[in-house]
């Protein structure tokens, strides 16, 4: 993941592909540093001062989509 200097947007690069990340996806990916999915949800809920239940589906779906594309890995 890096910042595209032409647009200042976050992009995720992989073989023969570029994924432009929206702010939600970028926030979620920034937390993919060894935390569990529920820890990520808790952290984001705290950051944005919302109920974790509001975020859970978004986070889970985003991560599942990225995992299907082999762009992240659950360990």
């Amino acid at each position, binding site marked *: 993941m890096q910042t595209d200097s032409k647009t200042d947007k976050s*992009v995720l690069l992989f073989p*023969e592909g*570029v994924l432009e990340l929206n702010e939600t996806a970028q926030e979620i990916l920034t937390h993919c540093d060894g935390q569990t999915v529920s820890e990520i949800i808790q952290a984001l809920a705290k950051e944005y001062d919302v109920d974790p239940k509001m975020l859970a589906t978004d986070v889970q779906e985003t991560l599942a989509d990225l995992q*299907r594309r082999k762009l992240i890995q659950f360990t």
Partner: protein
Amino acid sequence: MTAPRPYALLAEITYRCPLHCPYCSNPTQARDNGELSTDEWTRVIREAAALGVLQIGFSGGEPLARRDLPDLVRAAREANLYTNLITSGIGLDDDRMGALRDAGLDSVQLSFQSDNSDLADEIAGTRAHQHKLSAAAKVRAAGIPLSLNFVIHRRNIDRLPEMIELAETLHAERVELANVQFYGWAFLNRATLLPTRQQVIRAREIATAAKARLAGKVDIFYVLPDYYESRPKPCLAGWGQRYLTVNPIGDVLPCPTASSAIPDLRFENVRAHALDWIWRESESFNRFRGTEWMPEPCQSCPQREIDFGGCRCQAALLTGNAANTDPVCELSPNRAAVDAILSNLNPSSDQASDWIYRINPKPSSLFLSRATTPKALAEQRPSG
């Protein structure tokens, strides 16, 4: 139209290759009169990054044939590019793997000709398969993401399940099952490489099922054989839109096959011009940019910004005019040319003796190899 920003640079750093695959997309009459130096490539890489390029693929020929590959990878990483090595794996020993890893290489795409050693070596025209298996292990041991690339054709298409199994065994993250596209050497060998319709239908079913089965484990890309399609592929996502290629001698191309397929287009060289000017201003990049150049039926077609009229190289190779609609399109007045190729297919000619193996570029005009038969020569099309 105004030039958009490009996303990816394909750096074909050499046409030299230890393999002789008859489906190679390199030009059949590639020139080898002076590859770009390390310094010249470093300049090209920096200029590409400044243009907006985010990703570089080191390809060829065999990019490992250049000793300075780790230096080029380092230069690309320093320019903040995602670096991808597209290789046969030949020459990837522990030292070079270590040097590439230390230079910051992000990913490796390793080509395989088959899962079966004998067939793979027959297709490659040399003993390569065992080296590839060991190269795959070295990539994994270095902790670098691995993709396997299979070029699919009549002779190996029935082994798709075994190829996918090999990707699983080697712990590849991705596998690309790409039906051969007919350019360069593949165009010469089309009659023996083109799969039958039954093979293509079966292969698609296998790839689709495997993609679902292996979701999250191995990402499977199946590239369709476009002659069997009724609408053309969205080649390059449009000419001069997202991609550029720099070939070994520094010619800048909208796609790797353009220089040989479209002989009446003049391509500019990085030794004479800045990359920025070539991308934005040159005739070659602007000729088919956007939709204004399109003839009918493309011009009024609702799909024109979805498939961009298909592939310019294919239009040139099959209709003699790069500005025509890709003849794969069912709406093209030239679709009959593709149908004739499909109906004249002779499924029994798919053996090594039927192939014209790729040979390395020679500095002189002599390019005929011992593998070239008189019959094959008669079927060759002259190209520039």
